[in-house]
């Protein structure tokens, strides 16, 4: 991927596999996912619900909810392997080296403590500062994330903030110890459109100023298009396509990405009908053999039914699709007639 440069990647995920043992057998929710993030880079991870994008993020920050577990692969942060660390070690890295922002700002904040106290505690956990210094830093952070009247807001409780302001506090909390990477899982989904734009602008500015890399997990292609440098499109637990955001958005190589882009209403032209991908993403229990997208794919061939494609170069991107292999998709096949 972007490893052509001499800089080692900040985050390196290799063949990550996340499993959920259930009584009906083991479900593979994330399957052979590899990508890296360079220092200061914003990688968007986009996909529909159940694609495994949030689980990938949770695996990186070490917060997979049991019974989910990492069943294979390695995660390296700044050259150090972090996927097999004991809980306490990982807890120190989380916060100090990796910050996390979740969809619902309310769940990230303790309702019983003032935001100032939460900031100070987090700062002092990770940095050797006195209480007074920590409070000064907390105040600076609140100002930085654009909370008006930060001095007086320091002693307010989470419920006294609006949704957008709360998300700003969460961002401040994630930035406390100056992490190198922020994993942001649907940070704007719960917010109104006008607030979304504010939060995205804030995230972009902070990353630019601090050189922090971001893994931005979202289902919203618009957010990705505006924010990310590169984007990984996930489908049924695997990466379908990964590449520079402009290439993926403008010249998608994987049929799924093409369909996804076409199904977003376009402000330029009013069409009677949107491009649609028939069917739905398979449940984890019913992932078809071969390429997981094949039952919904208009361009599939006989090879797609049996052989699972890995990421391969496709234009400026990489796509997991036999269309971009010299061997091709094999004998052409009609699309399965699924209930459209």
């Amino acid at each position, binding site marked *: 991927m972007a490893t052509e440069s001499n800089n080692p990647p900040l985050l390196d995920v290799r063949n990550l596999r996340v499993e959920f043992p259930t009584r009906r057998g083991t479900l593979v929710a994330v399957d052979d996912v590899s990508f890296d993030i360079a220092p200061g880079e914003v990688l968007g991870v986009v996909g*529909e*619900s159940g694609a495994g994008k949030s689980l990938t993020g949770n695996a990186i920050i070490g917060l997979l909810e049991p019974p989910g577990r990492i069943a294979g692969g390695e995660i390296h942060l700044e050259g150090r392997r972090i996927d097999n660390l004991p809980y306490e070690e990982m807890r120190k890295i989380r916060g100090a080296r990796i910050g996390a922002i979740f969809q619902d700002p309310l769940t990230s904040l303790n309702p019983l403590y003032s935001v100032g106290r939460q900031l100070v505690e987090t700062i002092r956990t990770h940095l050797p500062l006195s209480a007074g210094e920590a409070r000064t830093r907390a105040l600076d952070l609140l100002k930085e994330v654009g909370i008006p009247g930060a001095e007086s807001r320091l002693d307010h409780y989470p419920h006294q903030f*609006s949704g*957008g*302001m709360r998300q700003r506090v969460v961002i401040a909390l994630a930035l406390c110890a100056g992490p190198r990477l922020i994993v942001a899982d649907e940070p704007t989904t719960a917010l*109104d*459109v*006008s*607030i*979304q*734009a*504010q939060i*995205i*602008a804030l995230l972009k500015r902070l990353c630019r100023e601090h050189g922090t890399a971001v893994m931005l997990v979202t*289902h*919203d*292609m*618009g*957010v990705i*298009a*505006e924010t990310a440098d590169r984007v990984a499109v996930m489908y049924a637990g695997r990466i379908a396509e990964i590449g520079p*955001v*402009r290439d993926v*958005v*403008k010249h998608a190589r994987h049929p799924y990405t093409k*369909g*996804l*882009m*076409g*199904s*977003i*209403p*376009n*402000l*330029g*032209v*009013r*069409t*009677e*009908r*949107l*491009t*649609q*991908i*028939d069917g*739905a*993403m398979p449940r984890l229990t019913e992932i078809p053999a071969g390429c997981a997208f094949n039952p919904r794919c208009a361009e599939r061939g006989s090879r797609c039914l049996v052989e699972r494609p890995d990421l391969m170069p496709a234009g400026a991107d990489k796509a997991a699709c036999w269309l971009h292999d010299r061997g091709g998709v094999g004998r052409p096949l009609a699309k399965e007639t699924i*209930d*459209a």
Partner: protein
Amino acid sequence: MPDGGGAQFVRLAGLKRYFDVSAPWLVRKIEGRPRQIVQAVDGIDIEIAKGETFSLVGESGCGKSTVARLVVGLYPPTAGTIEFDGNDMAGRRSRSDMAALRRRMQMIFQDPYASLNPRWRVFDIIAEPIRAFGLSTDKADLQKRVEDLLRQVKLTPADGRKYPHEFSGGQRQRVSIARALASQPEFLVCDEPTSALDVSVQAQILNLMVDLQRRFGLTYLFISHNLAVVYHISTRVGVMYLGRLVEVAPTETLFTRPKHPYTRMLLDTIPDLDMTGRQRSPVAGEVPSPLNPPSGCTFHPRCPFANDRCKIERPKALSIEGGTVACHAIAEGRLAVEERSYAANS
């Protein structure tokens, strides 16, 4: 379409709905707190022509969902009237006359996981309106009607035997649409029907709604916060802010020649998927609490064009370019209409 002969299909006039969210009487007296009234819908006028799709957009708390629920009669209005095909919905009439009116308007809900009774089979869910309105006399006819409905929403008759939990979100929304169509309505109120769905599924549902509209000549009141979706599906669009309608215009006009400063702000928030380099200019400030709305024009604290008059006097709706806009700056000619263009995606 809106000026087609004057006889409007659905007409909302001076519609208001206030909610009393005060603490219980005893608590209020002990703690000396005043009554608290939320003006969820504060006097709106909308006319919807037959066969068109009228959309209401706005941020959460602007009252758009309350309008939807007022129209189908889930809440009684605090003031104002709702006319449906010339009938005042509040008028006194017999049970059967009321049922006849209700049959002609149905609703599609936002959350496909909450809008279907989890204990019922899909067949019974879709059959319920048919049974309730007595549209089917015998079992064979009912069976046939439900199967037809399932096919119309691109499900199979065999799906009728399943329970809602056996379906994906998109399929559930299809069931929800089939139920809404079961009583052969002419007017559908759709409250954020795709906002809980993934984009590829959203496209399927929007296409389905367009197909059904064409086939049955349906009229839609479409509630959404997603401007791209609204642009795609609507004939005309109304923009709501804090319980009031700030601008109404034909879709193309609203998106290319927005007038109200709030409309412009909303348009600024649409993500730039085409990556034309258009800068999203995030607007400062947040929606004030509807418990204590600002005086005059409720948008004035966030409006870059507000003057003293805006702080005191509530602007009246002014007819302009086939629509209406409620803004002093536009009315006084202080603010020019803005031209916008969008790049067509390759």
